């Protein structure tokens, strides 16, 4: 027995040691990560972020240097109070801020760097740089911030901001304090613009002194600069669109039909992209983000999904022709609406009757399109089959689904099919009369402005479109082939001419004849969208949204456009005027219809937008009066003059 004491103790100790080693190195031992190793200093070199140019080569976004004070909490050495006060003064923060920031950094990770004071001014940097070596655990990281060469296009260009922890977890390339594209092209072309940062691994000793490159620099990499990109936006047209959108809410999307390139993508209200650069970024961003009434961060050109109203009628005309249920000469009578038996299914406004296709489009006759639509659906024995066929045609125009393009946000819109109504009403328990609203673009059909602009482009092209996109050129690279391949609609080319003639007549003697522009053959279609808001728990109707869809010139169109103005009432009132002006601006480069321009710039919808929030009962549509203001552009010019 006595022989066994030391023997068993030795074996026991051996086992305990192996267990402890197992616990330290395998069980508790984190996977070795050089980025977490405090013995190795990681020095990043951030590459130049790619510039952004507009389609005419005008520089929109460049860079400016920025300096962040970073901290690695566990390496911070306690300072005496005098040193601490001096350090805080240099950083322009208070003692409490210092403790709070250090605590926050420690909570994130004691061994990884966190930004301590981001984006120093140049003068602060100059002073601090000299003394930085005194403050162990802190260092200055140079980065590059954006410098906007323009005041427009905030929604198009987007911005860059610090990565959050969720992004870091998903994409380990990013470290805390790194910048990433947050909206617009900065987001969708992040990887191309940002390049790849370079990294140097440096072996440190325990006094935090560099003692040489780690593994002779085998793992070090050089930064790869970001590539410049050219976007399809015409910055002058974009600026003009934003000017027209002042004091209104809505969106404008203009596309070049022959390529699918987005010429302008306006949303109102907007903001100056420069406010999201520098130390005030988070303050300003928060302000924009929490403005739940005007929603300046909500890109209405891409996200405002509403029943499109009358512009959708032309799709029904095309489907009718393709399905052979109507030809351009067939006429239908309209008795101020469409009657099913003695029941009026839809109203209409006053115009001549009966109407053929051309008149139907030009006068936007509801009855005509209900007839056409019912013929399409009823061509098939089962209404579901008819609806499916109809939906397939409509979707071939890029409606009812995501466009699958290079914009950071988007919405699918909605084109209902047979299944949709089977779910709503029950299988075979509905027929064409249930769903006539779709004939006139109301009811279940929904689309966004960019989808409508693309629809206009497809019509202008007589049956095909290119996916609307924002990228025109990437330095040393090609743009995705998806954007250079035409997408064909299910409508044969010959069916487009009568419809286009009808849209042309909208301008000649139809609902937009007051908006004609000398020397440009514009084809368009007005629209209005009823809309509702919940006020005090009650569904309340607001003034209609004003919608206009157009392309020009009639043959070989150069521009297709959709304009959407919230609560602008009828289509040609706001949206139509703005569409005509945008087309003239793009094609002629100058404005001859100064009367239209002046009207837009002197009419505001701010009062209209205030109504639902006033708490008072209010009137809508025809019972309201428009708010007239000073000419916005002239006012701007005056301000510029005063400055000089």
């Amino acid at each position, binding site marked *: 027995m006595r022989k066994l*004491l030391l023997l068993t103790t030795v074996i026991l*100790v051996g086992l305990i040691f192996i267990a402890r080693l197992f616990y330290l190195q395998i069980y508790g031992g984190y996977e070795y990560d050089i980025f977490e190793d405090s013995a190795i200093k990681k020095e990043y070199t951030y590459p130049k972020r790619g510039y952004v140019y507009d389609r005419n080569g005008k520089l929109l976004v460049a860079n400016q240097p920025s300096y962040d004070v970073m901290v690695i909490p566990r390496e911070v050495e306690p300072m005496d109070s005098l040193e601490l006060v001096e350090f805080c003064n240099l950083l322009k923060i208070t003692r409490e801020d210092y403790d709070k920031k250090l605590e926050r950094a420690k909570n994130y990770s004691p061994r990884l760097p966190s930004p301590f004071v981001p984006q120093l001014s140049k003068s602060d940097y100059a002073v601090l740089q000299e003394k930085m070596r005194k403050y162990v655990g802190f260092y200055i990281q140079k980065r590059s911030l954006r410098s906007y060469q323009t005041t427009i296009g905030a929604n198009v260009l987007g911005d860059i901001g610090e990565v959050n922890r969720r992004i870091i977890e998903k994409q380990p390339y990013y470290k805390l304090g790194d910048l990433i594209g947050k909206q617009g092209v900065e987001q969708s072309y992040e990887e191309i613009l940002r390049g790849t940062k370079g990294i140097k691994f440096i072996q440190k000793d325990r006094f935090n002194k560099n003692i040489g490159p780690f593994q002779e620099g085998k793992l070090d990499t050089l930064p790869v600069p970001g590539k410049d990109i050219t976007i399809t936006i015409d910055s002058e047209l974009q600026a003009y669109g934003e000017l027209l959108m002042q004091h209104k809410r809505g969106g404008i999307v203009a596309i070049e039909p022959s390529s699918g390139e987005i010429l302008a993508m306006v949303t109102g209200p907007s903001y100056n992209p420069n406010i999201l650069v520098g130390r005030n970024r988070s303050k300003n961003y928060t302000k924009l983000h929490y403005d739940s009434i005007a929603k300046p961060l909500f890109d209405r050109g891409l996200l405002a999904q509403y029943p499109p109203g009358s512009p959708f009628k032309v799709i029904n005309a095309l489907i009718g022709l393709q399905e052979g249920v109507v030809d351009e000469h067939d006429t239908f009578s309209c008795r101020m609406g469409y009657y099913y038996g003695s029941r009026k299914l839809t109203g209409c406004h006053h115009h001549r009757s009966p109407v053929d296709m051309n008149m139907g489009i030009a006068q936007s006759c509801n009855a005509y399109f209900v007839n056409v639509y019912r013929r399409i659906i009823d061509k098939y024995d089962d209404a579901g089959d008819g609806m499916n066929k109809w939906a397939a045609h409509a979707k071939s125009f890029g409606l009812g689904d995501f466009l699958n393009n290079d914009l950071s946000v988007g919405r699918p819109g909605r084109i209902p099919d047979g299944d949709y109504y089977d779910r709503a009403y029950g299988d075979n328990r509905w027929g064409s009369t249930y769903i006539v609203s779709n004939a006139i673009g109301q009811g279940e059909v929904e689309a966004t402005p960019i989808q409508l602009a693309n629809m206009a482009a497809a019509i202008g092209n007589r049956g095909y479109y290119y996916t609307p996109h924002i990228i025109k050129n990437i330095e040393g690279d090609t743009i995705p082939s998806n954007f250079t391949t035409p997408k064909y609609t299910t409508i044969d080319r010959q069916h487009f001419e009568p419809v286009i003639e009808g849209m042309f007549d909208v301008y000649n003697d139809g609902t937009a004849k007051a908006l004609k522009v000398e020397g440009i053959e514009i084809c368009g279609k007005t629209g209005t969208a009823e809309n509702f808001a919940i006020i005090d728990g009650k569904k309340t109707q607001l003034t209609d949204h004003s919608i206009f869809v157009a392309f020009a010139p009639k043959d070989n169109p150069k521009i297709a456009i959709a304009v959407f103005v919230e609560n602008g009432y009828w289509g040609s009132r706001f949206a139509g005027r703005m569409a005509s002006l945008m087309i003239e601006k793009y094609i002629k480069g100058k404005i001859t219809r100064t009367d239209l321009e002046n009207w837009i710039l002197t009419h505001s919808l701010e009062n209209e937008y205030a109504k639902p929030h006033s708490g008072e009962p209010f009137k809508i549509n025809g019972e309201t009066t428009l708010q007239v203001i000073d000419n916005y552009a002239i006012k701007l010019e005056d301000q510029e003059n005063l400055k000089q």
Partner: protein
Amino acid sequence: MLRENQRRFKFDWITIILFLLLVGFGYINILSASHDGEVTSYFNMTELYGKQLVFIGLTFVIIVLILSLEAKFYERFSSIIYLAAILLLVGLFIFGKDVNGARSWYGIGSMTIQPSEFAKFATALAVAKYISDLQTNMKTLKDQIRVAAIIFIPALLILLQNDAGSTIVYAAFFFVFYREGLQQIYLIVALSLIILAVLSLKFGIAITAIVAAIALTVRYFIRKKKRASKLQYVLVLFVAVGFAYGVKLFYKHGLQTHQQNRISLWLRLEKDPAKLERMRKSEAYNLIQSEEAISSGGLTGKGFLQGTRTTGKFVPEQETDYIFSTVGEEWGFAGSSIVVFLFVFLIIRILYLAEAQKSQFSRVYGYGVASILFIHFTINIGMVMGLIPTVGIPLPFFSYGGSGLWGFTILLFIFVKLDSNKINEW
């Protein structure tokens, strides 16, 4: 004649190979822990690894010397060797040189010699000699006191030189005494005292008293025969509580601050986060760095000369007491386990050989060797991995330093020599 020769060289090669493996692997790790960026020459005498290579070379001279002496020499001259070692320790008070607050070095030119490293084998020889005397009976109090004196004299001298770590090593002889007949009650008392001390520091007097009372009650009811009186049990309880209280007092007033801190860290007594944060940078710094270096090694380690913490010299004293953290970082779980295994194997091998000795002197000495290696191994690796409080003693054959390496080599090879002679013992 041939047979004579064969007998003379019948050394235990397993022990020798284990020794060579440990020294060789130790040198590799000293190289890692002490190099500055690039290794230009292995014989660079300005670098620690260059010096260690010389120490290792001299070790072989010592081995040849030890093995060529007559086996009987060690038994015959054990008293003189012991006295010489004691004199060397005493001499330190006059001629010694202070290093890091401990007066345990002789300076000869640029060389330094640490006599406490040689006192270990000398004491082991003396203990073996005394116990193997026919007159000695370890069960008698008289012999217990005398043999205790043999170890207390060097232990006390070393303690007075402010080298508490090396003093603890002499506790190793408890295993020897126990093997040679010391009563079991000593073992029980020793274990009880350790448990009482830890309980009292960690949980306080009240809980310690309750635990002691429960343990005694259980023992009272299990032991139905030959049961001592209740009064004696109460007396023992009182002594136990008194001891617990004494430990507390000693911890607070008897220990130096750095010793207090080491125990406080080990038992996680400090709860104040601000103070803990400060300790991370001072008292606990070594331990935290060492544990992190070991943890970062993972399964297979970062590779020879690739340890980032070793290269950056994050662990102070890494080439000496903290050498095992280099193994942990560069060779990982695999390498560290092998080192633990080699030590366990070596100690068991010595125990096995000791039990096979025909002379009591050789057996007791062998036990002494195994016990001393065991205590070094346990305290050093346990400390580096944070299992026991920080105690500064080297890892045999691994840690940098001539005195240590030679001391352990002499200790081991005297036994190898004794073992090789067992055929001639009658």
